[in-house]
């Protein structure tokens, strides 16, 4: 069925296309290619009008292309300075009467214009237009820059690449106006949050589409924008392009406005990033080696706001005075640190020495506590190393006129910045082109990569619906551990977590995730040029990814021990990791994990293929007065994803990896309706037809239109919802082609205006697919095995109106060049209206769901983008170039009928609210401390309160008291870069900046504390005695009595965490990169039999030039959510490049 479809669609397309010219249609249908030349002759005759009168010297000649040596058909040949000329015929020859000593100008679309002296029998070789800026690669077609009417930025990978960052997507930060890259986590494999022109959706991912060598890259797992910063293990496989070696990349083309992206129509709402990998070139052959050696700095306490152990111990003493950390509770507490350990030592009797671990005397205890006070443990030093990460890549490229190829291998080895975070990555890439004949070319690309990674063990975070607190049990993320753990603790002692002994070093060894990722991709492209103007091509691609995440919780890890912690009867009663048999009246809690550990494995596989057939027709008439470019085709894509999950209990890692499980595990799972393994399959299918036409008059006025008709299975079986047409209409005015422009030269050397209007779309969040009712199966919870059965249930009610999320965009652009293009200024202004966005609608619930996703929301956004590049100094040996990039974006939700609660609006991820930006953050107005040192706030009724904030309140009238703080997404981003070169030396200083967002500070305040956590230095300034409320806003440490008398005290501290006091500006200016490179002189290098040799020393992410003081070292880009998330480190990289 599928083949049938492809073929039929292809033929249909041909039909549409061929209607343009009936004669050519006949040719194809009759398969009579000989007629082709006659035809062209007829065309030539039609266009020939002049040149007959002056019968001087008749010159005949041939025009050939440098690329393939084949004749150029339809090239314009003019006598210089006149309007007399002709066009080459089917064999590339022309004849023309030329006055003596006159030059001929020969031009053809996509080739450089040549002016040569006329000679009989002359052969003119036209070179393809080489300068990089001249061609726009949309992933589907290459277009002449002058004919392109959309907004786009091309980034040369060589210049943008940040050495030592193996994930290439991170190096796009600050490189293109309108593109923001937020490194929400720096862990390898985690995708940064990339936005092209800001958010385009409310619940959708707003992720740009990645297109590599013309093929859309699909993610193995769908990780939403919020989940990217969650620190959960699946973020490790969230980057679709982590398997690309940055050395293999030639360039990026970022397509921004609807005109540029509309060829991808229904998937391109959030912009497109087109990656082109390196290819071999004819006549050149190289072997080159690139080695990168990176050292990362260990974070230092001096940049953070963490208490030293002395201050920390004084807090603990205060806690003790206030009724906490006493023997009875702490010795059997879930979690305990210094005090818990002290009580444990007091109880530990060593029969050989006849001594207790600690004598129960005031003196001994004071001594024990004093030693903790002096400890000042440096957790960063303990858990981080500055070991060297290295990346080696070797590539060979060679080519003849007939065939060109590029092949590369790379190996990256990272011993880990933190403990338990090794990465190895190997990539191979092969790219070959073969010219079967002048008319037929065949290209093959294949690439493979394998990644092996280790990460600290983590389970997914869960959010408490009532308090909004994000909890992650058993978190051992080294970065957040170092920040959150008291510096009074020793690195070797075992403290208590979940009633079981805990030591971070032991835990990192015993509890880790092994990630394996292999990617394989291959594609073939066949192009056939029956005519010089016409190119038909077919492309087929296949990709396969297999990933596995194996979480090993070994025998002696705290996480495994927690399942068997029953040291005292109190612990046995309270430890909820134990299991009590409900069938036995007298049962005591027992362990479901008496031996061994737990292995938890998730596999995600993806298999996809793409097929595309296209035809491109380029022609020019009347001496380039009319240039027509038509492009069209169809494509089908298919992606199948498969995932399995399994959890094995009782894996005895220390006993030869033999499982030994307790039968209670299964009894318990059955009783508690927990899964023992799961499996899931999803399939995506899409079909699209597209066409694009460009017309240019004299190269001055350009008109462009695109239409795409796409269908997907994603919206379910409903045939009305699945098809969507998208389109764009745009134009450009190349003012510099006008005759009057001559008077402005050379001060002004280039001026183009562009205007476009478009409709593009996206499929919305991946979990919203209910254009028909979705019925799934599940096992309803039942109390006993004997009454279990499975059932079908309605997972989502039908929403027959479900459709794509859509966007109308108006873009106005201007490109200016001054002083022979030494100063280039590009500017784009856009206005967007996003509608039919998926939002969470509040309904009457009579259908069975109160909150339903549907196309109810709309938003508008607008922005300005500016990029300025200047060549300040250009001398023989010295040059200085600068670039300045700025973009501003603003969005506002214009329509959203939904219900939100106070909790939604004040927590750190931001929330969409009508009349505000997509991710706006609010605060509870703080009104100072009261006489007891407790925080007070303005509440929903306009009164001052301590504990009266109703986080669940969702009546809009009662939420008006909240203060709007701003958006969590930056509004102004950009960069400032300077490159100085002197002979072989080059110095690059690159600064990025980001402004306009707010950040919620870490929620560190609580109504009760334990003796494990560290506290920020603010606590030094806390309320201690009445009267302090006049000088400080840091609330009191609540005593046990205060907590007993007011059960709702936690509301007060929670409200404080989400108050106007705990917010900071996210603005920053970052010294992103300073690098010094040296290209060894050619003469010197060639004596070593090398073609080039260079060294580069680069410092990345060095420091923040500016950031809000309230952040106190908290990285405004990074979300410290634990799990596997770590920030991008400060690092130094040495790069060695050798070319032979």
């Amino acid at each position, binding site marked *: 069925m599928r083949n049938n479809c492809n073929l039929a669609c292809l033929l249909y397309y041909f039909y549409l296309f061929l209607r343009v010219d009936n004669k050519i249609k006949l040719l194809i*249908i009759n398969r009579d290619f000989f007629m082709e030349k006659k035809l062209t002759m007829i065309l030539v005759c039609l266009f020939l009008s002049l040149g007959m009168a002056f019968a001087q010297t008749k010159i005949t000649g041939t025009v050939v292309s440098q690329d393939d040596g084949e004749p150029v058909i339809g090239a314009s040949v003019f006598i210089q300075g006149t309007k007399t000329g002709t066009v080459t015929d089917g064999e590339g020859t022309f004849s023309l009467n030329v006055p003596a000593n006159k030059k001929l100008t020969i031009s053809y679309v996509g080739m450089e214009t040549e002016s040569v002296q006329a000679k009989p029998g002359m052969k003119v070789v036209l070179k393809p237009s080489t300068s990089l800026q001249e061609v726009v690669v949309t992933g589907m077609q290459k277009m002449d820059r002058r004919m392109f009417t959309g907004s786009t930025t091309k980034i040369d990978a060589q210049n943008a690449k940040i050495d030592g960052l193996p994930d290439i997507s991170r190096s796009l930060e600050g490189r293109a106006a309108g593109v923001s890259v937020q490194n929400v986590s720096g862990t390898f494999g985690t995708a940064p949050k990339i936005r092209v022109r800001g958010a385009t959706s409310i619940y959708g991912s707003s992720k740009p589409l990645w297109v590599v060598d013309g093929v859309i890259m699909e993610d193995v797992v769908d990780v939403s924008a919020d989940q990217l910063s969650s620190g959960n293990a699946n973020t490790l496989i969230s980057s679709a392009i982590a398997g690309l070696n940055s050395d293999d990349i030639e360039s990026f083309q970022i397509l921004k406005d609807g005109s540029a992206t509309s060829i991808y129509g229904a998937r391109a709402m959030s912009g497109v990033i087109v990656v082109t990998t390196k290819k071999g070139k004819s006549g050149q052959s190289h072997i080159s080696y690139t080695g990168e050696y990176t050292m990362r700095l260990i974070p230092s306490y001096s940049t953070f706001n963490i208490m030293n152990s002395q201050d920390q111990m004084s807090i603990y003493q205060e806690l003790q005075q206030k009724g906490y950390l006493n023997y009875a509770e702490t010795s059997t507490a879930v979690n305990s640190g210094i005090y818990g350990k002290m009580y444990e030592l007091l109880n530990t009797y060593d029969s050989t020495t006849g001594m207790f671990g600690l004598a129960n005397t005031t003196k001994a205890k004071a001594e024990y506590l004093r030693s903790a006070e002096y400890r000042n443990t440096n957790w960063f030093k303990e858990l981080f190393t500055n070991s060297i990460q290295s990346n080696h890549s070797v590539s060979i490229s060679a080519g003849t006129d007939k065939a060109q190829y590029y092949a590369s291998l790379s190996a990256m080895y990272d011993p880990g910045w933190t403990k338990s975070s090794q990465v190895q990555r190997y990539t191979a890439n092969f790219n070959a082109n073969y010219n079967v004949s002048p008319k037929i070319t065949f290209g093959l690309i294949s690439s493979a990569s394998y990644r092996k990674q280790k990460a600290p063990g983590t389970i997914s975070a869960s959010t408490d619906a009532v308090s909004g607190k994000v909890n992650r049990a058993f978190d051992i993320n080294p970065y957040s551990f170092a920040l959150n753990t008291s510096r009074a603790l020793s690195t070797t002692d075992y403290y208590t977590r979940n009633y079981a002994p805990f030591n971070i070093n032991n835990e990192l060894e015993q509890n880790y995730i092994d990630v394996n990722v292999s990617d394989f991709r291959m594609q073939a492209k066949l192009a056939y040029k029956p005519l010089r103007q016409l190119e038909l091509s077919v492309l087929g691609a296949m990709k396969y990814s297999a990933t596995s995440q194996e979480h090993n919780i070994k025998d002696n890890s705290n*996480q495994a021990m927690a399942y068997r912690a029953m040291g005292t009867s109190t612990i046995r009663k309270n430890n909820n990791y134990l299991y009590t048999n409900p069938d036995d009246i007298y049962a005591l809690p027992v362990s479901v994990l008496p031996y061994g550990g737990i292995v938890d494995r998730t596999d995600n596989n993806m298999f996809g293929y793409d097929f595309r057939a296209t035809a491109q027709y380029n022609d020019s008439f009347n001496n380039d007065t009319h240039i027509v470019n038509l492009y069209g085709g169809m494509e089908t894509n298919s992606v199948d994803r498969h995932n399995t999950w399994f959890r094995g209990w009782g894996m005895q890692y220390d006993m030869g990896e033999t499982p030994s499980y307790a039968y209670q595990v299964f009894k318990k799972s059955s009783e*508690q309706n927990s899964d023992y393994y799961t499996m899931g399959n*999803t399939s995506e299918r899409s079909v699209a037809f597209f066409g694009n036409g460009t017309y240019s008059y004299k190269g001055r006025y350009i008109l462009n239109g695109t239409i795409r008709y796409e269908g997907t*299975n*994603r919206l379910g079986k409903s045939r009305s919802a699945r098809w969507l047409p998208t389109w764009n209409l745009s134009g450009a005015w190349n003012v510099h082609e006008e005759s009057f422009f001559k008077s402005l030269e050379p001060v002004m050397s280039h001026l183009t205006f562009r205007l476009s209007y478009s409709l593009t779309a996206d499929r919305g969040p991946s979990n919203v697919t209910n254009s028909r009712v979705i019925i799934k199966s599940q096992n309803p919870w039942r109390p*006993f095995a004997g009454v279990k059965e*499975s059932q079908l249930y309605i997972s989502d009610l039908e929403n027959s109106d479900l459709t794509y999320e859509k966007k109308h965009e108006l873009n106005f652009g201007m490109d200016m060049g001054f002083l022979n293009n030494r100063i280039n200024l590009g500017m784009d202004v856009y206005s967007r209206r996003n509608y039919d966005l998926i939002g969470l609608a509040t309904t009457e619930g009579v259908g069975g769901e109160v909150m339903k996703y549907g196309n109810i929301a709309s938003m508008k956004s607008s922005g300005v983008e500016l990029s300025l590049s200047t060549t300040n100094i250009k001398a023989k040996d010295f040059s200085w170039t600068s670039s300045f990039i700025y973009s501003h974006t603003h969005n506002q939700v214009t329509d959203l009928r939904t219900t939100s609660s106070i909790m939604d609006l004040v927590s750190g991820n931001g929330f969409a609210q009508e009349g505000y930006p997509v991710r706006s953050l609010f605060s509870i107005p703080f009104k100072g401390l009261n006489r007891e040192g407790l925080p007070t706030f303005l509440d929903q009724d306009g009164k001052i309160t301590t504990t009266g904030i109703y986080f669940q309140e969702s009546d809009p009238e009662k939420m008006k008291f909240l203060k709007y703080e701003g958006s969590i997404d930056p509004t102004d981003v950009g960069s400032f870069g300077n490159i100085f070169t002197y002979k072989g030396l080059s110095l690059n200083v690159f600064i990025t900046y980001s402004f306009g967002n707010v950040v919620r500070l870490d929620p560190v305040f609580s109504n009760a504390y334990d003796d494990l956590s560290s506290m920020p230095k603010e606590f030094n300034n806390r309320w201690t005695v009445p009267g302090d409320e006049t000088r400080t806003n840091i609330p009191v440490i609540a005593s046990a009595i205060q907590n007993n008398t007011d059960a709702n005290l936690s509301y007060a501290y929670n409200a404080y965490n989400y108050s106007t006091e705990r917010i900071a500006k996210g603005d920053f200016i970052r010294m992103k990169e300073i690098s010094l490179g040296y290209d060894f002189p050619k003469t010197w290098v060639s004596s070593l039999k090398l073609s080039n040799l260079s060294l580069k020393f680069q410092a990345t992410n060095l420091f923040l030039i500016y950031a809000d003081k309230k952040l106190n070292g908290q990285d405004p880009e990074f979300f410290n959510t634990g799990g596997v998330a770590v920030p991008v480190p400060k690092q130094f990289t040495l790069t060695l490049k050798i070319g032979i």
Partner: protein
Amino acid sequence: MKKNNILYSIVLLAFASISLASCDSYLDKMPDNRAEVDSEDKIASLTTSAYPTNDYILLNECMSDNVDDMGPTYANYTSRFLDQVYSWNDATDEDNESSENLWQSCYKAIASANQALKSIEELGGATTTKLKETKAEALLCRAYSHFILTNEFCMNYNSKTSTKDMGVSYLTEPETTLDPKYERGTVAHDYEMIDKDIQEALPIVGDTHYDVPKYHFNSQAAYAFAARFYLFYEKWDKAAEYASVCLGASPKTMLQNWDKMQSYGVTNSLTPRCNLYIDASSNSNFLLLTSISEAGLFGSNHIYFTKYSHNTYLASTEDLLATNIYGDSRDMRCKPMTFSGSGMDRVIVAKLPYMFEETNPVAKTGYSRTVYPAFKADLTLLERAEAYIMLKEYTKACDDLNAWMHNYTNSDVVLTPQNIQAYYTALNYANWNAPTIKKHLYPAFGIDKEGSIQECMLQCALSFKRIETSYEGLRWFDIKRYGINIVRRTINASGKPGEKTDSLTTNDLRRAIQIPFKVRQAGLQANPR
């Protein structure tokens, strides 16, 4: 040439349309593992999800006269949600037990039932036995969820005002658009629709296809539901008739085995004892439903929600521990347990288990669960007694009351209309600070005057029902149906009523709990206040 052109056009257009059609079938691939309901088995499986997974138990217990406010010393053992429920205020806080969840859960069950009924029609109607039984189940499920919704969110049914009282929307089709707007209709209309569904279902109801009949509307459950419905619908003869079909010739053999429950004694864990109560193999349980609920904690010895408690004072003056016609709690086969001490003063029977569905055993996340008998022989027997009393068939009523009482207690008292009248006329009507087991009745349907045989026998039946339904939430419906006035009172440090804070009169509009906030925000008409 021209002809050819047209020919080509036709051929290619035909290709184009075929290609679009074939593309459509290419795109018909299911995006995930969703199911198509296209067989008997699948329809039956879908109907399994036509039962609400949230219950009314905690909500109703806390609104009824089965709890008192235990005062400020218990301030730590409550939630904002519970405070609002207890004081009959419109709830704003979200909670697993909130009215919004109950609303959504009942309508979700209705959606499953409607989808199943639609699928049966698509399959060509209920032609086979299995389809007939499934259709009966779906109709009964739809009726049951509407029955719960109407009784929670509306004023109780009565033949006088229900044609004007706002009902809930009675849904008979699956919803297909994002945000349709509904009219609430009237309580009378809801009852007519429930009546219609039950009448359509009863002739085709059957148990042949169930694997786990006790978790479905089996025939016994169907008739028990019909009996309760017609009792609420003031159709006493039908109520008695269906109850008799359900209970058969020897109801005594169907009743709860209290001696066995008593034999489990008081242990640390009450779960095994509760498991007996909700045992699917017990004849007394007709229909068992599971729900996301903390009702199991509320009726246990755990210190949860103890601020609003079925306390010793209440129990010993009004129900479980109070002197009754049979004697007192010492005569009960299964003695109520009293837990009083720090942070707790509660008299329980330990019926509904507290269980935990652990969706992730590593992160320890999941749902609190319980199982409750939606229909039980013991209660159906008392409901039949009530119907007989309304029909003035007092001897038959006494037979049922005796049967229940002799099963629940060891008492050798034999009830007769006369000794019931004698016992109850001797009792005072309860006052907030001088409570008894007898409260004034103001039912809309009208009964004989106070002190009459009918009134006294109703007092007796209601007092038995209150004991039978303790911790199961059903007392609230009797309070509504009989217009019983109840109070909010605070128990002082000496365990006696200290203060009366509010009271609920017969026509108090708060008897219909408020439509959930979000639903009102979406446009559904609110209940008047």
